[in-house]
Protein backbone atom coordinates (compact mmCIF):
# COMPACT_ATOMS: atom_id res chain seq x y z
CA UNK A 1 0.00 0.00 0.00
CA UNK A 2 1.14 3.52 -0.82
CA UNK A 3 2.42 5.36 2.24
CA UNK A 4 0.66 8.54 3.27
CA UNK A 5 2.85 11.63 2.79
CA UNK A 6 1.98 12.75 6.32
CA UNK A 7 3.58 9.62 7.80
CA UNK A 8 6.67 10.01 5.61
CA UNK A 9 7.05 13.64 6.68
CA UNK A 10 6.60 12.82 10.37
CA UNK A 11 9.35 10.19 10.14
CA UNK A 12 11.86 12.92 9.29
CA UNK A 13 14.17 13.78 12.17
CA UNK A 14 13.15 17.42 12.52
CA UNK A 15 10.51 19.70 13.94
CA UNK A 16 7.77 20.57 11.47
CA UNK A 17 6.32 23.92 10.50
CA UNK A 18 2.86 23.75 9.02
CA UNK A 19 0.90 26.68 7.60
CA UNK A 20 -2.86 27.22 7.31
CA UNK A 21 -4.47 29.59 4.84
CA UNK A 22 -8.03 30.16 3.62
CA UNK A 23 -8.34 29.17 -0.02
CA UNK A 24 -9.43 32.11 -2.16
CA UNK A 25 -7.84 34.76 0.04
CA UNK A 26 -6.56 37.41 -0.56
CA UNK A 27 -7.43 36.72 -4.22
CA UNK A 28 -9.44 33.88 -5.71
CA UNK A 29 -6.57 32.50 -7.79
CA UNK A 30 -3.87 32.73 -5.07
CA UNK A 31 -4.19 29.08 -3.96
CA UNK A 32 -1.51 27.55 -6.19
CA UNK A 33 1.02 30.43 -5.93
CA UNK A 34 0.69 30.32 -2.11
CA UNK A 35 1.32 26.56 -2.08
CA UNK A 36 4.37 26.88 -4.37
CA UNK A 37 5.85 29.72 -2.31
CA UNK A 38 5.26 27.89 0.97
CA UNK A 39 7.03 24.78 -0.31
CA UNK A 40 9.89 26.86 -1.72
CA UNK A 41 10.25 28.57 1.68
CA UNK A 42 10.76 25.19 3.33
CA UNK A 43 7.37 24.73 4.99
CA UNK A 44 6.77 21.06 5.85
CA UNK A 45 3.01 20.74 5.46
CA UNK A 46 0.04 22.91 4.49
CA UNK A 47 -3.56 23.05 5.69
CA UNK A 48 -5.75 24.47 2.95
CA UNK A 49 -8.87 26.03 4.46
CA UNK A 50 -12.16 25.49 2.69
CA UNK A 51 -14.09 28.69 3.48
CA UNK A 52 -17.41 28.50 5.34
CA UNK A 53 -20.02 31.13 6.10
CA UNK A 54 -20.26 30.18 9.80
CA UNK A 55 -16.84 29.06 11.09
CA UNK A 56 -17.63 28.38 14.77
CA UNK A 57 -14.14 27.54 15.96
CA UNK A 58 -12.37 30.44 14.33
CA UNK A 59 -11.39 33.85 15.60
CA UNK A 60 -11.84 37.13 13.70
CA UNK A 61 -8.82 36.85 11.35
CA UNK A 62 -9.77 33.50 9.84
CA UNK A 63 -13.49 34.43 9.84
CA UNK A 64 -12.76 37.55 7.83
CA UNK A 65 -10.45 35.77 5.39
CA UNK A 66 -13.14 33.12 4.96
CA UNK A 67 -15.84 35.72 4.29
CA UNK A 68 -13.56 37.49 1.80
CA UNK A 69 -12.74 34.20 0.04
CA UNK A 70 -16.46 33.46 -0.37
CA UNK A 71 -17.01 36.96 -1.72
CA UNK A 72 -14.17 36.33 -4.18
CA UNK A 73 -16.15 33.36 -5.45
CA UNK A 74 -14.47 30.39 -3.77
CA UNK A 75 -16.48 27.15 -3.72
CA UNK A 76 -15.64 23.51 -3.05
CA UNK A 77 -15.68 22.73 -6.76
CA UNK A 78 -13.54 25.77 -7.56
CA UNK A 79 -10.91 24.73 -5.02
CA UNK A 80 -10.74 21.19 -6.40
CA UNK A 81 -10.36 22.59 -9.92
CA UNK A 82 -7.50 24.84 -8.76
CA UNK A 83 -5.79 21.88 -7.11
CA UNK A 84 -5.95 19.59 -10.14
CA UNK A 85 -2.39 18.74 -11.17
CA UNK A 86 -0.97 20.22 -7.95
CA UNK A 87 1.12 17.07 -7.40
CA UNK A 88 3.22 18.02 -10.45
CA UNK A 89 4.61 20.88 -8.37
CA UNK A 90 4.09 20.13 -4.69
CA UNK A 91 5.33 17.11 -2.79
CA UNK A 92 4.81 18.17 0.86
CA UNK A 93 1.71 16.79 2.64
CA UNK A 94 -1.51 18.68 1.91
CA UNK A 95 -4.43 18.66 4.34
CA UNK A 96 -7.85 20.15 3.64
CA UNK A 97 -9.42 21.83 6.65
CA UNK A 98 -13.06 22.78 6.61
CA UNK A 99 -16.43 22.54 8.30
CA UNK A 100 -18.74 19.60 7.77
CA UNK A 101 -21.73 21.24 6.07
CA UNK A 102 -20.07 22.20 2.75
CA UNK A 103 -18.60 18.68 2.57
CA UNK A 104 -22.05 17.15 3.18
CA UNK A 105 -23.55 19.22 0.39
CA UNK A 106 -20.76 18.21 -2.00
CA UNK A 107 -21.33 14.57 -0.99
CA UNK A 108 -18.87 12.95 1.41
CA UNK A 109 -18.00 10.05 -0.89
CA UNK A 110 -17.56 12.34 -3.91
CA UNK A 111 -15.46 14.67 -1.74
CA UNK A 112 -13.17 11.81 -0.67
CA UNK A 113 -12.79 10.56 -4.25
CA UNK A 114 -11.85 14.02 -5.45
CA UNK A 115 -9.29 14.42 -2.65
CA UNK A 116 -7.73 11.08 -3.53
CA UNK A 117 -7.52 11.93 -7.24
CA UNK A 118 -5.82 15.26 -6.48
CA UNK A 119 -3.40 13.83 -3.95
CA UNK A 120 -4.76 15.29 -0.73
CA UNK A 121 -3.35 13.39 2.25
CA UNK A 122 -5.84 14.12 4.97
CA UNK A 123 -8.67 16.21 6.33
CA UNK A 124 -9.36 18.22 9.45
CA UNK A 125 -13.08 18.75 10.09
CA UNK A 126 -13.48 20.57 13.42
CA UNK A 127 -17.22 19.98 13.76
CA UNK A 128 -17.26 16.29 12.85
CA UNK A 129 -16.94 14.51 16.22
CA UNK A 130 -14.64 11.52 16.47
CA UNK A 131 -17.45 9.08 17.36
CA UNK A 132 -19.60 10.04 14.36
CA UNK A 133 -16.54 9.80 12.13
CA UNK A 134 -15.72 6.32 13.41
CA UNK A 135 -19.22 4.98 12.95
CA UNK A 136 -20.18 6.56 9.66
CA UNK A 137 -17.19 7.72 7.65
CA UNK A 138 -13.93 6.06 8.68
CA UNK A 139 -14.14 3.14 6.26
CA UNK A 140 -14.85 5.53 3.39
CA UNK A 141 -11.86 7.72 4.29
CA UNK A 142 -9.64 4.63 4.62
CA UNK A 143 -10.75 3.38 1.23
CA UNK A 144 -9.58 6.62 -0.37
CA UNK A 145 -6.30 6.73 1.54
CA UNK A 146 -7.35 9.83 3.49
CA UNK A 147 -6.34 10.51 7.08
CA UNK A 148 -8.68 12.43 9.36
CA UNK A 149 -7.00 14.41 12.13
CA UNK A 150 -8.64 15.29 15.45
CA UNK A 151 -8.22 18.14 17.90
CA UNK A 152 -7.54 17.99 21.62
CA UNK A 153 -7.57 20.92 24.05
CA UNK A 154 -6.36 21.62 27.62
CA UNK A 155 -9.87 20.61 28.78
CA UNK A 156 -9.97 17.26 26.97
CA UNK A 157 -10.08 14.51 29.65
CA UNK A 158 -7.19 12.02 29.60
CA UNK A 159 -9.47 9.09 28.79
CA UNK A 160 -10.78 10.88 25.74
CA UNK A 161 -7.23 11.77 24.63
CA UNK A 162 -6.38 8.06 24.85
CA UNK A 163 -9.45 7.23 22.76
CA UNK A 164 -8.58 9.86 20.15
CA UNK A 165 -4.98 8.60 20.08
CA UNK A 166 -6.20 5.09 19.46
CA UNK A 167 -8.34 5.99 16.44
CA UNK A 168 -6.01 8.66 15.03
CA UNK A 169 -3.64 8.46 12.17
CA UNK A 170 -1.31 11.16 10.88
CA UNK A 171 -1.14 13.52 13.84
CA UNK A 172 -3.14 14.90 16.73
CA UNK A 173 -3.87 18.61 16.51
CA UNK A 174 -3.20 20.06 19.97
CA UNK A 175 -5.14 23.28 20.46
CA UNK A 176 -2.81 25.43 22.57
CA UNK A 177 -5.43 26.94 24.85
CA UNK A 178 -9.15 27.08 25.42
CA UNK A 179 -9.78 29.55 22.66
CA UNK A 180 -10.85 30.03 19.10
CA UNK A 181 -8.09 30.53 16.53
CA UNK A 182 -6.11 33.75 16.66
CA UNK A 183 -2.64 34.97 17.32
CA UNK A 184 -1.22 35.41 20.81
CA UNK A 185 2.20 36.86 21.53
CA UNK A 186 3.27 34.54 24.35
CA UNK A 187 2.36 31.27 26.00
CA UNK A 188 2.03 31.15 29.79
CA UNK A 189 2.74 28.52 32.39
CA UNK A 190 -0.68 26.93 31.81
CA UNK A 191 0.23 26.13 28.21
CA UNK A 192 3.67 24.83 29.10
CA UNK A 193 2.13 22.53 31.74
CA UNK A 194 -0.39 21.27 29.21
CA UNK A 195 2.28 20.65 26.55
CA UNK A 196 4.33 18.70 29.11
CA UNK A 197 1.34 16.73 30.36
CA UNK A 198 0.54 15.56 26.84
CA UNK A 199 4.20 14.82 26.08
CA UNK A 200 4.31 12.58 29.17
CA UNK A 201 1.27 10.61 28.03
CA UNK A 202 3.49 8.91 25.43
CA UNK A 203 0.81 8.85 22.75
CA UNK A 204 1.33 6.64 19.71
CA UNK A 205 0.28 9.49 17.40
CA UNK A 206 2.61 12.49 17.05
CA UNK A 207 1.22 15.86 18.16
CA UNK A 208 1.32 19.21 16.46
CA UNK A 209 0.43 22.41 18.33
CA UNK A 210 -1.86 24.99 16.77
CA UNK A 211 -3.88 28.12 17.69
CA UNK A 212 -2.09 31.18 19.05
CA UNK A 213 1.28 30.71 17.33
CA UNK A 214 2.45 33.95 15.78
CA UNK A 215 6.21 34.40 16.20
CA UNK A 216 9.52 32.70 16.93
CA UNK A 217 8.85 32.70 20.67
CA UNK A 218 5.49 30.90 20.51
CA UNK A 219 6.76 28.62 17.73
CA UNK A 220 9.77 27.57 19.82
CA UNK A 221 7.60 26.96 22.89
CA UNK A 222 5.16 24.90 20.85
CA UNK A 223 7.75 22.61 19.25
CA UNK A 224 9.69 22.03 22.45
CA UNK A 225 7.15 19.38 23.53
CA UNK A 226 5.68 18.30 20.21
CA UNK A 227 6.60 17.31 16.68
CA UNK A 228 5.62 20.61 15.15
CA UNK A 229 3.41 23.67 15.02
CA UNK A 230 0.65 25.06 12.80
CA UNK A 231 0.35 28.77 12.09
CA UNK A 232 -2.87 30.22 10.64
CA UNK A 233 -4.05 33.68 11.70
CA UNK A 234 -0.57 35.24 11.81
CA UNK A 235 0.14 33.99 8.29
CA UNK A 236 -3.19 35.32 6.99
CA UNK A 237 -2.42 38.74 8.50
CA UNK A 238 0.97 38.63 6.78
CA UNK A 239 -0.61 37.72 3.43
CA UNK A 240 -3.02 40.60 3.79
CA UNK A 241 -0.21 43.08 4.46
CA UNK A 242 2.66 41.78 2.36
CA UNK A 243 1.03 39.60 -0.30
CA UNK A 244 1.89 36.26 -1.81
CA UNK A 245 5.40 37.10 -3.08
CA UNK A 246 6.97 37.77 0.32
CA UNK A 247 6.03 34.41 1.91
CA UNK A 248 9.69 33.42 2.35
CA UNK A 249 10.19 36.36 4.74
CA UNK A 250 7.38 35.12 6.95
CA UNK A 251 8.78 31.61 7.18
CA UNK A 252 12.37 32.72 7.90
CA UNK A 253 10.98 35.16 10.46
CA UNK A 254 9.31 32.30 12.37
CA UNK A 255 12.28 29.93 12.19
CA UNK A 256 14.86 32.60 13.04
Amino acid at each position, binding site marked *: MKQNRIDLKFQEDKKLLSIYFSAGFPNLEDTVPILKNLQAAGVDMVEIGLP*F*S*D*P*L*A*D*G*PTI*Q*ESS*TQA*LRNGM*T*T*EKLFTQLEGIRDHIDIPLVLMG*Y*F*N*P*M*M*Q*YGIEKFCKRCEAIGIDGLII*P*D*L*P*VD*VYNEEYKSMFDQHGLYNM*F*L*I*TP*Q*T*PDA*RIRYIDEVSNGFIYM*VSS*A*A*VTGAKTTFGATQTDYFQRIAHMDLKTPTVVGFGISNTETYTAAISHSKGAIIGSAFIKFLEEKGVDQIKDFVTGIRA
Partner: protein
Amino acid sequence: MNYNVDEKGYYGDFGGAFIPEMLYPNVAELRENYLKITAEPEFQKEFDDLLKNYVGRPTPLYFAKRLSEKYNTKIYLKREDLCHTGAHKVNNTIGQILLAKRLGKTRIIAETGAGQHGVATATVCALMGIECIVYMGELDIKRQAPNVARMKMLGAEVRPALSGSKTLKDATNEAIRDWINNPVDTHYIIGSVVGPHPYPDMVARFQSVISEEIKIQLQQLEGRDYPDHVIACVGGGSNAAGLYYHYLNDTRVNIIAVEAAGKGIDSGASAATSVLGKEGVIHGSKTLLMQTPDGQITEPYSISAGLDYPGVGPMHAHLFRSGRAEFISVPDQEAMDWGLTLSQMEGIIPAIETAHAFAALDVRKFEPDEVVVFNCSGRGDKDLDTYIDYFKL
Protein backbone atom coordinates in the same frame (compact mmCIF):
# COMPACT_ATOMS: atom_id res chain seq x y z
CA MET B 1 -42.95 5.88 15.69
CA ASN B 2 -41.27 7.80 18.47
CA TYR B 3 -41.10 11.56 18.08
CA ASN B 4 -39.07 12.23 21.23
CA VAL B 5 -35.31 12.32 21.27
CA ASP B 6 -33.51 8.94 21.30
CA GLU B 7 -30.67 7.99 23.64
CA LYS B 8 -28.07 9.18 21.13
CA GLY B 9 -29.60 12.62 20.87
CA TYR B 10 -31.40 12.18 17.55
CA TYR B 11 -34.93 12.78 16.32
CA GLY B 12 -35.03 10.33 13.43
CA ASP B 13 -32.28 11.49 11.05
CA PHE B 14 -31.82 14.81 12.81
CA GLY B 15 -30.01 16.17 15.85
CA GLY B 16 -26.78 14.87 17.35
CA ALA B 17 -23.88 17.02 18.54
CA PHE B 18 -21.69 18.24 15.67
CA ILE B 19 -19.41 20.36 17.78
CA PRO B 20 -15.72 21.24 17.74
CA GLU B 21 -13.70 19.26 20.25
CA MET B 22 -13.19 22.47 22.25
CA LEU B 23 -16.86 22.30 23.26
CA TYR B 24 -16.87 18.60 24.08
CA PRO B 25 -16.34 18.95 27.86
CA ASN B 26 -19.03 21.64 28.22
CA VAL B 27 -21.62 19.74 26.22
CA ALA B 28 -20.73 16.41 27.83
CA GLU B 29 -21.14 17.95 31.29
CA LEU B 30 -24.64 19.11 30.36
CA ARG B 31 -25.58 15.84 28.68
CA GLU B 32 -24.50 13.81 31.69
CA ASN B 33 -26.30 16.04 34.19
CA TYR B 34 -29.41 17.64 32.73
CA LEU B 35 -31.83 14.75 33.29
CA LYS B 36 -30.43 13.94 36.71
CA ILE B 37 -30.53 17.52 37.99
CA THR B 38 -33.94 18.40 36.57
CA ALA B 39 -35.40 15.24 38.15
CA GLU B 40 -34.26 16.24 41.64
CA PRO B 41 -37.25 17.14 43.87
CA GLU B 42 -35.41 20.22 45.11
CA PHE B 43 -34.92 21.45 41.52
CA GLN B 44 -38.52 20.77 40.59
CA LYS B 45 -39.77 22.56 43.67
CA GLU B 46 -37.75 25.69 42.88
CA PHE B 47 -38.66 25.55 39.17
CA ASP B 48 -42.39 25.15 39.86
CA ASP B 49 -42.33 27.88 42.48
CA LEU B 50 -40.66 30.37 40.14
CA LEU B 51 -42.99 29.49 37.27
CA LYS B 52 -45.98 30.06 39.54
CA ASN B 53 -44.97 33.08 41.57
CA TYR B 54 -42.50 34.85 39.29
CA VAL B 55 -43.60 33.99 35.73
CA GLY B 56 -47.32 33.88 36.60
CA ARG B 57 -48.13 30.29 35.57
CA PRO B 58 -50.34 28.52 34.85
CA THR B 59 -51.21 30.74 31.92
CA PRO B 60 -54.90 30.72 30.95
CA LEU B 61 -56.35 28.54 28.20
CA TYR B 62 -58.77 31.07 26.81
CA PHE B 63 -61.79 30.18 24.65
CA ALA B 64 -61.79 32.71 21.80
CA LYS B 65 -65.51 33.15 21.35
CA ARG B 66 -65.68 35.60 18.46
CA LEU B 67 -62.95 33.87 16.51
CA SER B 68 -64.63 30.50 17.08
CA GLU B 69 -67.95 31.85 15.78
CA LYS B 70 -66.36 33.34 12.71
CA TYR B 71 -64.49 30.17 11.78
CA ASN B 72 -67.19 27.81 13.05
CA THR B 73 -64.93 25.70 15.24
CA LYS B 74 -63.71 25.68 18.86
CA ILE B 75 -60.64 27.86 19.17
CA TYR B 76 -58.58 28.11 22.34
CA LEU B 77 -55.55 30.34 22.92
CA LYS B 78 -52.80 29.27 25.29
CA ARG B 79 -51.89 32.62 26.74
CA GLU B 80 -48.08 32.47 26.89
CA ASP B 81 -48.16 36.18 26.07
CA LEU B 82 -49.16 36.71 29.70
CA CYS B 83 -45.89 35.28 31.03
CA HIS B 84 -43.52 37.68 32.77
CA THR B 85 -41.39 39.39 30.07
CA GLY B 86 -44.16 38.88 27.52
CA ALA B 87 -43.49 35.50 25.95
CA HIS B 88 -42.90 31.80 26.56
CA LYS B 89 -39.10 32.31 26.37
CA VAL B 90 -38.83 32.76 30.15
CA ASN B 91 -39.96 29.15 30.86
CA ASN B 92 -36.67 27.98 29.40
CA THR B 93 -34.41 30.62 30.91
CA ILE B 94 -35.76 29.88 34.41
CA GLY B 95 -35.01 26.19 33.91
CA GLN B 96 -31.54 26.78 32.52
CA ILE B 97 -30.46 29.31 35.15
CA LEU B 98 -31.39 26.83 37.91
CA LEU B 99 -29.40 24.15 36.09
CA ALA B 100 -26.43 26.49 35.60
CA LYS B 101 -26.40 27.31 39.31
CA ARG B 102 -26.32 23.63 40.22
CA LEU B 103 -23.44 23.09 37.79
CA GLY B 104 -21.53 25.82 39.65
CA LYS B 105 -21.50 28.26 36.72
CA THR B 106 -20.90 31.94 37.53
CA ARG B 107 -21.29 33.53 34.12
CA ILE B 108 -24.15 33.31 31.59
CA ILE B 109 -24.05 33.94 27.88
CA ALA B 110 -26.93 33.96 25.41
CA GLU B 111 -27.75 34.84 21.83
CA THR B 112 -30.75 36.85 20.78
CA GLY B 113 -32.40 37.93 17.53
CA ALA B 114 -35.36 40.17 18.27
CA GLY B 115 -34.26 40.45 21.87
CA GLN B 116 -37.01 38.40 23.55
CA HIS B 117 -34.72 35.57 24.61
CA GLY B 118 -32.06 38.12 25.55
CA VAL B 119 -34.52 39.90 27.82
CA ALA B 120 -35.71 36.61 29.33
CA THR B 121 -32.08 35.65 30.02
CA ALA B 122 -31.15 39.05 31.44
CA THR B 123 -34.22 38.81 33.67
CA VAL B 124 -33.32 35.48 35.28
CA CYS B 125 -29.68 36.56 35.65
CA ALA B 126 -30.85 39.65 37.53
CA LEU B 127 -33.08 37.40 39.64
CA MET B 128 -30.12 35.19 40.56
CA GLY B 129 -27.44 37.89 40.65
CA ILE B 130 -25.32 36.23 37.94
CA GLU B 131 -23.23 38.02 35.30
CA CYS B 132 -24.98 38.06 31.91
CA ILE B 133 -23.63 38.71 28.42
CA VAL B 134 -26.02 38.70 25.47
CA TYR B 135 -24.74 38.49 21.90
CA MET B 136 -26.90 40.27 19.37
CA GLY B 137 -26.27 40.98 15.70
CA GLU B 138 -25.18 44.55 15.08
CA LEU B 139 -28.10 45.00 12.67
CA ASP B 140 -30.61 43.64 15.21
CA ILE B 141 -29.26 46.00 17.89
CA LYS B 142 -30.25 48.88 15.64
CA ARG B 143 -33.65 47.35 14.78
CA GLN B 144 -34.64 46.38 18.33
CA ALA B 145 -33.58 49.34 20.43
CA PRO B 146 -36.25 48.97 23.18
CA ASN B 147 -35.21 45.38 23.95
CA VAL B 148 -31.55 46.42 24.02
CA ALA B 149 -32.48 49.05 26.57
CA ARG B 150 -34.44 46.50 28.63
CA MET B 151 -31.46 44.14 28.74
CA LYS B 152 -29.15 46.96 29.81
CA MET B 153 -31.59 48.07 32.48
CA LEU B 154 -31.64 44.49 33.78
CA GLY B 155 -27.88 44.67 34.15
CA ALA B 156 -26.82 42.60 31.14
CA GLU B 157 -24.03 43.49 28.77
CA VAL B 158 -25.16 43.46 25.14
CA ARG B 159 -22.29 42.60 22.82
CA PRO B 160 -22.69 43.24 19.10
CA ALA B 161 -21.99 40.34 16.74
CA LEU B 162 -19.98 41.93 13.96
CA SER B 163 -19.26 38.85 11.86
CA GLY B 164 -21.04 37.51 8.78
CA SER B 165 -24.50 38.94 8.23
CA LYS B 166 -24.61 40.53 11.72
CA THR B 167 -27.94 38.91 12.71
CA LEU B 168 -29.21 35.96 14.81
CA LYS B 169 -27.08 33.21 13.29
CA ASP B 170 -23.96 35.33 13.78
CA ALA B 171 -24.96 36.17 17.35
CA THR B 172 -25.23 32.40 17.91
CA ASN B 173 -21.76 31.87 16.39
CA GLU B 174 -20.33 34.56 18.68
CA ALA B 175 -21.96 33.02 21.76
CA ILE B 176 -20.50 29.62 20.83
CA ARG B 177 -17.04 31.21 20.36
CA ASP B 178 -17.37 32.85 23.78
CA TRP B 179 -18.18 29.43 25.25
CA ILE B 180 -15.10 27.94 23.58
CA ASN B 181 -13.00 30.73 25.12
CA ASN B 182 -14.61 30.33 28.57
CA PRO B 183 -15.21 26.62 28.99
CA VAL B 184 -15.13 26.32 32.78
CA ASP B 185 -17.18 29.04 34.47
CA THR B 186 -19.74 29.80 31.75
CA HIS B 187 -23.13 28.34 30.84
CA TYR B 188 -24.65 29.09 27.46
CA ILE B 189 -28.44 29.54 27.63
CA ILE B 190 -29.65 28.72 24.12
CA GLY B 191 -33.09 30.22 23.47
CA SER B 192 -34.62 27.67 21.15
CA VAL B 193 -34.79 23.93 20.50
CA VAL B 194 -31.63 24.17 18.40
CA GLY B 195 -27.93 23.52 19.00
CA PRO B 196 -26.11 20.31 19.92
CA HIS B 197 -27.78 17.57 21.95
CA PRO B 198 -28.90 17.89 24.75
CA TYR B 199 -30.06 21.46 24.05
CA PRO B 200 -33.05 20.68 21.80
CA ASP B 201 -34.39 18.14 24.31
CA MET B 202 -33.55 20.23 27.35
CA VAL B 203 -35.26 23.36 26.01
CA ALA B 204 -38.27 21.30 24.85
CA ARG B 205 -38.60 19.83 28.35
CA PHE B 206 -38.54 23.27 29.99
CA GLN B 207 -41.16 24.48 27.50
CA SER B 208 -43.26 21.33 27.88
CA VAL B 209 -45.06 22.99 30.81
CA ILE B 210 -47.22 24.57 28.08
CA SER B 211 -48.83 21.32 26.94
CA GLU B 212 -48.73 19.88 30.47
CA GLU B 213 -51.07 22.69 31.57
CA ILE B 214 -53.22 22.38 28.44
CA LYS B 215 -53.95 18.73 29.29
CA ILE B 216 -55.31 19.70 32.70
CA GLN B 217 -57.16 22.75 31.38
CA LEU B 218 -58.81 20.92 28.46
CA GLN B 219 -59.93 18.13 30.78
CA GLN B 220 -61.88 20.73 32.75
CA LEU B 221 -63.13 22.69 29.73
CA GLU B 222 -63.87 19.92 27.25
CA GLY B 223 -63.94 16.74 29.30
CA ARG B 224 -60.94 15.31 27.46
CA ASP B 225 -57.27 16.13 27.86
CA TYR B 226 -56.35 16.44 24.20
CA PRO B 227 -57.35 18.78 21.37
CA ASP B 228 -57.83 17.82 17.71
CA HIS B 229 -55.26 20.31 16.46
CA VAL B 230 -52.33 22.18 17.97
CA ILE B 231 -50.97 25.13 16.02
CA ALA B 232 -47.84 27.20 16.58
CA CYS B 233 -45.39 29.36 14.68
CA VAL B 234 -41.93 27.91 14.12
CA GLY B 235 -38.66 29.79 13.77
CA GLY B 236 -36.20 27.68 15.73
CA GLY B 237 -39.32 26.14 17.27
CA SER B 238 -39.30 26.50 21.06
CA ASN B 239 -42.90 27.60 21.61
CA ALA B 240 -44.06 24.93 19.17
CA ALA B 241 -41.99 22.27 20.95
CA GLY B 242 -43.66 23.20 24.24
CA LEU B 243 -47.13 23.10 22.70
CA TYR B 244 -46.60 19.76 20.95
CA TYR B 245 -44.52 18.04 23.62
CA HIS B 246 -47.13 15.95 25.45
CA TYR B 247 -48.97 15.20 22.21
CA LEU B 248 -45.99 14.18 20.07
CA ASN B 249 -46.82 10.48 20.27
CA ASP B 250 -50.61 10.97 20.59
CA THR B 251 -51.78 10.62 17.00
CA ARG B 252 -55.32 11.71 17.87
CA VAL B 253 -53.80 15.17 17.86
CA ASN B 254 -52.97 16.80 14.52
CA ILE B 255 -49.86 18.97 14.65
CA ILE B 256 -49.62 22.11 12.54
CA ALA B 257 -46.46 24.22 12.24
CA VAL B 258 -46.53 27.66 10.67
CA GLU B 259 -43.35 29.07 9.16
CA ALA B 260 -42.65 32.57 7.92
CA ALA B 261 -42.72 32.82 4.12
CA GLY B 262 -41.47 36.42 4.32
CA LYS B 263 -41.99 38.11 0.97
CA GLY B 264 -42.98 34.75 -0.55
CA ILE B 265 -41.40 31.32 -0.89
CA ASP B 266 -39.78 32.06 -4.25
CA SER B 267 -38.89 35.68 -3.52
CA GLY B 268 -35.41 34.99 -2.16
CA ALA B 269 -36.56 36.69 1.05
CA SER B 270 -38.17 33.95 3.13
CA ALA B 271 -37.67 31.90 6.29
CA ALA B 272 -39.72 28.82 5.34
CA THR B 273 -37.04 26.28 6.20
CA SER B 274 -39.16 23.18 5.62
CA VAL B 275 -39.75 24.23 2.01
CA LEU B 276 -36.42 25.87 1.21
CA GLY B 277 -34.05 24.02 3.51
CA LYS B 278 -31.85 21.01 2.88
CA GLU B 279 -30.33 18.58 5.35
CA GLY B 280 -27.14 19.98 6.82
CA VAL B 281 -25.35 20.98 10.01
CA ILE B 282 -25.88 24.32 11.74
CA HIS B 283 -24.86 25.34 15.26
CA GLY B 284 -23.98 21.78 16.22
CA SER B 285 -27.12 20.04 15.02
CA LYS B 286 -28.01 18.06 11.92
CA THR B 287 -31.27 19.50 10.66
CA LEU B 288 -32.96 21.23 7.74
CA LEU B 289 -31.37 24.56 6.92
CA MET B 290 -31.37 27.19 4.23
CA GLN B 291 -28.11 27.18 2.32
CA THR B 292 -26.50 27.62 -1.07
CA PRO B 293 -25.80 24.54 -3.24
CA ASP B 294 -22.20 24.90 -2.01
CA GLY B 295 -23.26 24.52 1.64
CA GLN B 296 -22.91 28.14 2.74
CA ILE B 297 -25.66 29.11 5.17
CA THR B 298 -27.95 31.80 3.78
CA GLU B 299 -29.64 34.67 5.52
CA PRO B 300 -33.39 34.18 5.92
CA TYR B 301 -35.95 36.96 5.92
CA SER B 302 -39.19 37.56 7.77
CA ILE B 303 -40.86 40.75 8.96
CA SER B 304 -40.80 39.06 12.35
CA ALA B 305 -37.29 39.07 13.81
CA GLY B 306 -38.06 35.97 15.90
CA LEU B 307 -38.72 33.73 12.90
CA ASP B 308 -35.77 34.57 10.67
CA TYR B 309 -33.51 31.68 11.65
CA PRO B 310 -31.97 29.74 8.73
CA GLY B 311 -32.52 26.36 10.40
CA VAL B 312 -35.22 24.69 12.45
CA GLY B 313 -34.92 22.54 15.58
CA PRO B 314 -34.17 18.86 14.82
CA MET B 315 -37.47 17.79 16.42
CA HIS B 316 -39.35 19.86 13.86
CA ALA B 317 -37.20 18.62 10.98
CA HIS B 318 -38.21 15.11 12.02
CA LEU B 319 -41.90 16.03 12.41
CA PHE B 320 -41.76 17.46 8.89
CA ARG B 321 -39.90 14.62 7.18
CA SER B 322 -41.94 11.89 8.87
CA GLY B 323 -45.18 13.64 7.97
CA ARG B 324 -46.26 13.77 11.65
CA ALA B 325 -46.80 17.54 11.38
CA GLU B 326 -48.41 19.65 8.67
CA PHE B 327 -46.23 22.59 7.68
CA ILE B 328 -47.74 25.81 6.39
CA SER B 329 -45.87 28.95 5.36
CA VAL B 330 -47.39 32.38 5.75
CA PRO B 331 -46.17 35.59 4.09
CA ASP B 332 -45.54 38.86 5.95
CA GLN B 333 -48.73 40.48 4.76
CA GLU B 334 -51.07 37.74 6.04
CA ALA B 335 -49.27 37.63 9.37
CA MET B 336 -49.55 41.39 9.77
CA ASP B 337 -53.26 41.28 8.91
CA TRP B 338 -53.75 38.62 11.57
CA GLY B 339 -52.00 40.85 14.08
CA LEU B 340 -54.75 43.37 13.45
CA THR B 341 -57.55 40.78 13.35
CA LEU B 342 -56.61 39.20 16.67
CA SER B 343 -56.32 42.66 18.25
CA GLN B 344 -59.77 43.74 17.06
CA MET B 345 -61.65 40.46 17.49
CA GLU B 346 -60.22 39.28 20.82
CA GLY B 347 -58.51 42.37 22.24
CA ILE B 348 -55.12 40.68 22.16
CA ILE B 349 -52.23 42.36 20.33
CA PRO B 350 -49.94 39.45 19.45
CA ALA B 351 -46.26 39.37 18.64
CA ILE B 352 -45.78 39.21 14.86
CA GLU B 353 -44.30 35.71 15.30
CA THR B 354 -47.49 34.60 17.03
CA ALA B 355 -49.71 36.27 14.43
CA HIS B 356 -48.28 33.92 11.79
CA ALA B 357 -49.85 30.90 13.51
CA PHE B 358 -53.40 32.25 13.20
CA ALA B 359 -53.13 32.45 9.42
CA ALA B 360 -53.63 28.67 9.50
CA LEU B 361 -57.35 29.53 9.87
CA ASP B 362 -57.36 30.86 6.31
CA VAL B 363 -55.61 27.83 4.89
CA ARG B 364 -57.12 24.93 6.85
CA LYS B 365 -60.77 24.07 7.37
CA PHE B 366 -61.71 22.91 10.88
CA GLU B 367 -64.93 21.11 11.82
CA PRO B 368 -67.47 22.74 14.18
CA ASP B 369 -66.92 20.20 16.96
CA GLU B 370 -63.13 20.17 16.67
CA VAL B 371 -60.96 21.66 19.39
CA VAL B 372 -58.14 23.81 18.01
CA VAL B 373 -55.45 25.11 20.36
CA PHE B 374 -53.19 27.96 19.25
CA ASN B 375 -50.09 28.89 21.15
CA CYS B 376 -50.41 32.62 21.75
CA SER B 377 -46.66 32.65 22.32
CA GLY B 378 -45.93 36.33 22.81
CA ARG B 379 -47.42 39.78 23.08
CA GLY B 380 -46.99 42.50 20.52
CA ASP B 381 -45.59 45.39 22.58
CA LYS B 382 -42.10 44.79 21.17
CA ASP B 383 -43.52 44.98 17.63
CA LEU B 384 -45.41 48.25 17.96
CA ASP B 385 -42.90 50.13 15.81
CA THR B 386 -43.32 47.60 13.01
CA TYR B 387 -47.12 47.68 13.34
CA ILE B 388 -47.06 51.50 13.35
CA ASP B 389 -44.96 51.61 10.18
CA TYR B 390 -46.98 48.93 8.44
CA PHE B 391 -50.50 50.16 9.22
CA LYS B 392 -49.55 53.87 9.37
CA LEU B 393 -51.15 53.99 12.82
